[in-house]
Structures are given as C-alpha cells and as structure tokens.
C-alpha cells in the first residue's frame, strides 16, 4: 500500500534527525546517523541503508529514474539501492550509485553516477564527478581534478568515535524521527 511505502523503516539505535528529508521506501539500519538537511529520496525504487553509516548535512542519496525513462512508463522494475555498513557520506555529496559496499568514504561535493558499483574501502575524493559504468575495485582512492586513481594498502577506518559522539550530542539539539521496532534489522548481505 502507498502508506506503508512512504514511511521510512528506521531501526532502533539509528539517529535520524527530523529535519532530514526521507521520501519513499527507505530502510535505515542501526547505529546510522542521518544529519539534518540530509536527503534520502527513493523515487524509482527502495533504498536499503545498512548499519553504522554516517550521512552528513546536504548529502543527497537518491534512487532516481535513469534519464531516458519517463517516470510513468510501464515495464520499469523498481531497482533497490543497497548501501552497506560503515560508509561515510560527507557534506554536500550526491550519490546515485545503486550498490555501495562497506567502509567507503564519499567526500564533500562528490558526485556518483547511477551505474557505479563501489566495493569496499573506496574513497571518492572531494568534488570528483564519477559517472562511469564500472565496478570500482577495493581500496581505490579517486582524487584530484582529473579524478586520478590510486590504490591504498588499507581501508579507511570506520568512524566509530564520531558516530558515538553524534549519537550522544544530536538528540540534545534536534528532534529525532521515530524508530520502528523490528525483530531483525534489515541489513544487506556483505559481499
């Protein structure tokens, strides 16, 4: 039903501010922090976000229709966007990638296209627009104005300290969206 689709399923333990805009069928895992003014929009299909993610202000995670398909055309199956655990979406980034693994960092004002697949440990640098149709190998760093790439030897550390701090401080200053008590939180399988 439509009403069930428009309510976000926020697992217990997630901290989602009321000022964030969540539209469509969105599932958010435990220990994820969504800052005010973040936008998670599931237009063309549901979005499933795992645990321990950090989505900062003005970040935009959008499951939108591809450019050449009109919203109302038939035969378009809704594709689910899956986001793994321990990812960081920094301020002002935009992500349309359908599949994001674990421990990735998408830096400020980065722009991810729909056909990208991030594995784990990838870092998309600030202001990098990456719109190719490929699977980014593990531990890749994309940086610079020319989107240079290199491979780092270790994955970026999960931001546990920052997450703990925010989960304590944000409720002091913002109202939170209601969490849904589910028996098992929905987490995407690790690849």
């Amino acid at each position, binding site marked *: 039903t439509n009403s069930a689709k428009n309510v976000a399923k926020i697992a217990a333990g997630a901290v989602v501010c009321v000022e964030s805009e969540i539209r469509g069928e969105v599932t958010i895992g435990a220990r994820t922090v969504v800052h005010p003014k973040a936008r998670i929009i599931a237009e063309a299909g549901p979005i499933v976000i795992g645990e321990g993610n950090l989505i900062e202000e003005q970040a935009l995670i959008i499951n939108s229709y591809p450019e050449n398909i009109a919203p109302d055309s038939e035969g378009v199956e809704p594709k689910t966007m899956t986001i793994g655990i321990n990812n960081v979406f920094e301020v002002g980034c935009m992500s349309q990638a359908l599949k994001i693994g674990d421990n990735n960092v998408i830096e400020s004002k980065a722009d991810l296209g729909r056909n990208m697949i991030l594995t784990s440990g990838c870092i998309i640098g600030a202001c990098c627009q990456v719109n190719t149709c490929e699977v980014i190998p593990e531990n*890749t*760093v994309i940086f610079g104005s020319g989107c240079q790439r*290199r491979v780092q030897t270790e994955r970026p550390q999960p931001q546990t300290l920052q997450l703990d701090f925010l989960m304590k401080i944000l409720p002091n200053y913002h109202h939170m969206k209601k969490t849904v008590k589910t028996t098992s939180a929905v987490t995407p399988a690790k690849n």
Partner: protein
Amino acid sequence: MASLLQPDRVLYLVHGEKKIRSPLSTLYFCRYCSELRSLECVSHEVDSHYCPSCLENMPSAEAKLKKNRCANCFDCPCCMHTLSTRATNIPAPLPDDPSKTTMKKAYYLACGFCRWTSRDVGMADKSVASGGWQEPDNPHTQRINKLIEYYQQLAQREKLERDRKKLARRRPYMPLAFSQHTIHVVEKYGLGTRLQRQRPGAPITSLAGLSLKEGEDQKEINIEPAQALDEVEPLPEDCYTRPINLPEVTSLRQRLLQPDFQPAGASQLHPKHKHLLIKRSLRCRKCEHNLSKPEFNPTSIKFKIQLVAVSYIPEVRIMSIPNLRFQKECQVLLTLTNPVENITHVTLVGCEEGDPEDINSTAKVMVPTKELVLAGKDAAADYDELAEPQDFQDDPDVVAFRKSNKIGFFIKVVPQREEDGDVTVSFKIRHDFRNLAAPIRPSEEGDAPTEAIWLTHHVELSLGPIIA
C-alpha cells in the same frame, strides 16, 4: 560586467630594453628615474628562504647546504601535497615487564588529499613525531661528489688564469701576490653584486666561488673516467606477456620529482623534503635603487619598500562599452583614478599617424581635448561627512561623473577593421608627478619644495569584439 575589470584589458607600455606592454598592477615605478619598470627590466635578488608549510626562515648558507629543502616538512610523492603526521596507539611491551603491554604512540605520515600513507611504501612507524624520517640515500652520491669537487677545482683554476691574464694585461707592474689577494676577496662575496653578474655563456664560474679558502693548498683531485660496458642486463622474459598493474605504475611527474631514483613502481615512491620558497627583492637596473623589498618575516606580507606603479600613476579602467559597430562612432566610458594625495592634471592625446609605439590599435579614437583634473586621494573622505564637495566645473560631454579621486569620462571609438578579434585603441596619457623622493634643495626664491614633472605613458585598451 566584471570582465571589463580584468587586468589585461588596459596595458601600459614600458620603455626598457624590450618594449613591454602589461597591466599597471604588474608594473613598478622607479621614482628616482621617474619611469615605469616591468619585471623584465629589474634585477631580481633573493632575500630570504622559507618553508611554505612551517614558515620557518632559513639563512641562505643553511639553505644551500640542505639543497633548498625544509628539514621538517615532507611532500607526498603521489600528489605533491604537504604530508601531515598522524599518531596511532599501538600496544607495546613494557621494557620492565614483557608480559604487560601499554599503549605507545606511533607516528606515520599521511596525505590528506590522496590518502597516501608512509605505510604504503613500507616505511615503519616512528616513535618520535618529527625528525625520525629519513630520505633514502642515493647510491651514486659518492661518485657525484667526487665529480663535483674535481670540476670545482677545474673552474677555480680556469678563473684564476683568466683573471691573471686580465690583470697582467692591464697593469704589468702589479705584484702577482696582491692580484691573487684581490681575486679571492672579490670571490668571497660571490655572485649577486654588480661586479659579478653572471654573463650568459660564461664558463662555470658559479662553482668557483664555493670552496677553497685563501691559502689552502690545492689538492690534485683525479677522477676515473666512466667506463662503458659491453654487456647490458637482458630484459626479463615475461616483459611482453606480464599484465600491467596500472595503479602500481608511477606517472612521469611522480617519477621525475625524484631524479635520484626515478622509480617505475608506486611502492618505491618515498616522500621528499619540501622545497623552500624565496622572498625576492627587485632593483632598478639603471639607478640601482630598490623597487620592492619584502619583510624578512615569512608570515608578514607587507613590504619595507614598495614602489608599485598603481600608487603613483593614474589608472585607466574600462567602465562600460556599448555595442561596437564597424566604422560607426561609439562612445566608451572609462574611469581614471588618482592614486596620490595631491591634485593631478591629466591630458589625453591620441596617437599620431606613424607612431612607432602604436602597433596594435584597430580603431580610431577621439579623446577629450580638455585637461582633466583629478582630486587627491583622501583617506578620510569616507568618514568626513562635513567635507565640501569640490567644485571642478566639469563639462558634461566629457566627464560623466566624479567621485572623490575618480572620474568617468567618454572617448569616441570608430572601429576600422571588420575582422574577428578585439577592437584595440591606444592613446597617450600625460600627467604631472610630484617627486617626493627627490632631495629638497634649498631655493633662494622660496619655491615649493617639490616641482611637478610631466610624465607621458602609452596606454592600450582592449574593448572586445565587434558586434555586427
């Protein structure tokens, strides 16, 4: 329209060895010669060395010893950004009791831009925050040093012989010992003074000043010539079949920034110490006065001496341009700003036919014939509400507006060429300049201490394309 304020729209001509046209903001004004100077007609001298990231000053001798590199700061070998030191806690066994472990701090270098860390090339974490990092040694250092010593000695010998010949020709009666002494004295001060400015094509005199104090015996240094080898290492067998691991291949820039090793693999890229920057002072070549002398402190952006052209010469700027049409008269609005505190009188003169300086203009220009008067720059004008507006009686056909030390005036432009490209006009601007630097001569008649001299500058304006 911000593009009208771009600096390269209005160019002033500098008379030097080369005729240079450049915006007023890049020029200097020698008030002793009363002429404009550009960067190419002044001599540049190094004032001080400093590191751009830790802003530490370094005397020139120390900089030369450290090959112009900072001791504390490193550059990322991957993206050339400055590396920062990060600390982690690692468990380490206590020295007294090996079974217990405490958290010790370990430091590593990391780049904030490309996320390179010193662990990527296998450099172990250090226990001290700074000073623990070493650059790898060049295996050829010894050979290179020996070659440098040999050539230094050779240059010294050549220089002595040349000077001896020169002195022997001029003054045959001067004793040889005395002439050698003067040579050494001159050498001690090295390059940088007027006497020893490097002439292009001269032999390697720069090395000659470096070593060997007076009276030291010149040791004979012999070097072995380099030996040619017959056999070369063969290529590995899988050279053509092995797939390339692209992230591991270094780019040319990364490779050439480390000329000692030039590694082909990214796992051999070690960080290098950061290159120092210099503060330079400029000196007029004709009168040898300083035109620009920065402060010694690297954190200070001020100047001890700053004789820039914008603080002495009235500046012409374009304010608005109508649609330019081929062979139709258009009226362009320009502004003229007076940078000095006294009233300046400016006359504009169009370029005559066959003017050798007028090579770029593509349009005819009619400048106002009357003299324009610019009020002095009054720093307190914004705050002084009771100031009486000065009455200059401007001709409204010529002067569009007047605001403290700035006026707007009209010129008429008739584009002469229909081609693509910008319409360029040029004219001469003649203004009076009071030289405050000249020594005040005691005059019998009680004249004003500063007399005005008239300076003329050739100005070129780029007005944009013709709109059909």
